[in-house]
């Protein structure tokens, strides 16, 4: 009795401990985390052919084995733009080879070694050297291969078959534990309790119950082995086994854009090119909210002018013979028209009378001057008298000439500034009222925009004007009025840069920044789509052929962009073109 107790008790304790620790020890063996030492994860859908992908900061590469060739698709990593003129050198099992561009934008690498490979190989390791427009990158590429034979068993399971039974049991248990299966935990707890029971019974010196407990323990262990086997064979939730049911290896047409079970959207490269999906790497920044104001184009007040007649009169063409037409370029000071003021009948008789008087006086003074000239050499008339008479005659003649000139000389209308005739109201013979605008001159290179704003805008804020045809013009703030007009403040901006095709009075939409600053990611308006449940989502490009819908909170930013305030991390590749089409994939 005593020897049994002294030796068997520690042994039983050891067995109990070992039973308890076994499931955990299995995790020790495979504790090397951080990367995958096996084949790449096979596709999770039946209608996706096996493939491989690689990416660097510049490129994104997808390879699809098809028959005796490997089809490669190369895109820019950041934008998703296809690259069709790159040089692809591939390190294959048969030495280095070059992939040739195909008309559809892909690259084709003849791969006779695909047919002669070991049927057990489920992946292929290649090294691709990509040279495209000055960028060079070396990409390691692991391509999953369709299983040629023995499709029922995956490599992992086959390896597990010939392991030791204890190893298999522990692995099965550890898998159950990692799968949060309550059965495995119960088994461990049961073992512990049984060990304790065996200990207690042995200490009490009863042999038969100890044996009963040991038999119970053995049953439990065998049962656990049985369900470990079960886990291997049934395996509804083991992706590596499920991946064995992939379709025919050469069937490239099997690739369909589809929504996967995890919510991501799988879009094969050819479809991506068809939908012309483009992405943008988003960066966080501070943006000013903009308001849009109705506005119209006005001439720059310092580079435009009007030509008005100061007196009423009859319009006549300038000395050049014709009135300037609309659109004629004029220089400052150039004569544009003549205005002949009409003479009233009463004025006319008055003038005639005055004219007669002057003529009479001139005749008298003329005679006096003649007489003085004869007498002055003899000294009978002083030189002073002669000079006075001559001056008087000159003055009278001047007055007579001025009277004539006043009757016939018209007012010349000249251009106050250089520019182009924007408006012309001159017709020969027309009577112009005093102050009437005859011509408007505008410098087409110097135009302003006047908008009506309900908010006070910051003087330094930048603004743009959008035209009906989609063009936008940068604007520089010039000033704002203080007096309300139509319950809004007139704000004036100068148009920076080219003003071709603009006309005065044209309506524009002014987008002016307010002083409220917001932080977030600015994205084109077209990148945000509304999902079926009414949420705003953007599509993130998470892998070469996978897109994930990310719900976002957006705020309006300006005409073309929205501000994403939450939902997307900076550095994410977000679809900015074709998001609407991507959203239709079911």
């Amino acid at each position, binding site marked *: 009795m005593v020897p049994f107790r002294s030796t068997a008790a520690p042994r039983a304790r050891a067995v109990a401990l070992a039973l308890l620790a076994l499931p955990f*020890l299995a*995790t020790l063996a495979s*504790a*090397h985390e951080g990367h995958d030492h096996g084949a790449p994860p096979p596709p999770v859908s039946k209608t996706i052919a096996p493939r491989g992908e690689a990416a660097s900061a510049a490129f994104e590469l997808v390879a699809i084995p098809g028959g005796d060739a490997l089809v490669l698709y190369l895109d820019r990593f950041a934008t998703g733009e296809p690259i069709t003129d790159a040089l692809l050198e591939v390190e294959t099992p048969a030495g280095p080879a070059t992939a040739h561009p195909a008309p559809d934008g892909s690259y084709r690498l003849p791969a006779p070694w695909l047919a002669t490979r070991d049927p057990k190989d489920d992946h292929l390791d290649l*090294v691709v050297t990509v*040279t495209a427009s000055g960028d*060079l*990158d070396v*990409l390691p590429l692991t391509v999953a291969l369709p299983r040629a034979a023995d499709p029922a068993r995956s490599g992992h399971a086959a390896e597990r078959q010939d392991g030791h039974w204890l190893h298999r049991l522990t692995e099965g248990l550890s898998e159950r534990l990692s799968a949060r299966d309550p059965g495995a935990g119960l088994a461990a707890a049961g073992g512990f309790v049984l060990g304790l029971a065996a200990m207690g019974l042995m200490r009490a010196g009863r042999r038969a119950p100890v044996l009963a407990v040991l038999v119970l323990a053995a049953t439990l262990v065998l049962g656990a082995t049985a369900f470990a086997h079960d886990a291997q064979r049934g395996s509804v939730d083991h992706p590596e086994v499920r991946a064995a049911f992939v379709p025919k290896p050469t069937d490239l047409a099997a690739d369909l854009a589809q929504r996967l079970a995890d919510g991501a959207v799988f879009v094969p490269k050819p479809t991506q090119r068809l939908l012309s999906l483009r992405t943008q790497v988003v960066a966080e920044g501070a943006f000013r909210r903009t308001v849009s104001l109705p506005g119209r184009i006005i001439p720059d007040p310092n580079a435009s002018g009007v030509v008005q007649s100061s007196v009423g009169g009859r319009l006549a063409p300038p000395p050049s013979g014709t009135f300037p037409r609309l659109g004629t370029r004029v220089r400052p000071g150039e004569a544009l028209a003549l205005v002949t003021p009409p003479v009233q009948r009463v004025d006319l008789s008055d003038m005639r009378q005055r004219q007669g008087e002057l003529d009479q006086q001139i005749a008298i003074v003329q005679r006096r001057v003649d007489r003085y000239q004869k007498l002055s050499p003899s000294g009978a008339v002083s030189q002073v008298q002669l000079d006075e008479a001559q001056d008087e005659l000159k003055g009278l003649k001047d007055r007579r000439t001025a009277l004539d000139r006043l009757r016939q000389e018209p007012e010349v209308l000249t251009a106050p500034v250089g520019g182009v005739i924007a408006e012309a109201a001159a017709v020969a013979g027309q009577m112009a009222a005093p102050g009437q605008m005859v011509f408007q001159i505008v410098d087409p290179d110097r135009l302003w925009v006047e908008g009506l704003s309900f908010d006070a805008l910051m003087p330094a804020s930048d603004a743009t004007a959008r035209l009906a045809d989609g063009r936008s013009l940068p604007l520089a703030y010039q000033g704002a009025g203080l007096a309300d007009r139509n319950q809004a403040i007139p704000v004036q901006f100068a148009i920076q840069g080219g003003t071709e095709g603009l006309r005065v009075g044209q309506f524009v939409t002014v987008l002016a920044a307010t002083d409220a600053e917001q932080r977030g990611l600015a994205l084109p308006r077209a990148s945000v789509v509304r999902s079926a449940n009414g949420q705003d989502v953007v599509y993130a490009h998470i892998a070469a052929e996978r897109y994930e819908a990310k719900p976002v909170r957006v705020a309006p930013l300006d005409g073309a962009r929205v501000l994403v305030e939450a939902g997307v991390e900076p550095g994410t590749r977000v679809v900015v073109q074709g998001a609407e089409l991507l959203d239709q994939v079911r």
Partner: protein
Amino acid sequence: MLQRLLTAGTLAIALPFCAHQACAHEGTGEKGGRLADAGPYHIELVTRDRRVEVWVYDAQEKPVSPAGFKGTAILVVGGKPARIVLAPAEARLAGEAAVALGTNPKGVVQITGPDGAAASGKFN
């Protein structure tokens, strides 16, 4: 007795938590080169002037004999790819480049094991 049993039980439960200490392999390896994963192996790349040396380790960081291995290194030197064939030499795979490799050239090393399976590691 019961106390000792409880201590042992606690130990057995605590053990798996220590097991998750991952074998991190960033930075430089024991030969002073850069480390990368290549399929089931870890590889260390040492470039000295024109000489390229690659050491192969298994998942537990134990050296693997290079006998039976083949290798190719494609390294970017001055904007051009340099292809270097590696052959087993002593405890490593070694090769000679046509041009001098700068410090830490980026590129990819592909090794083919004795079983014919290729694996590649990327060095940035």
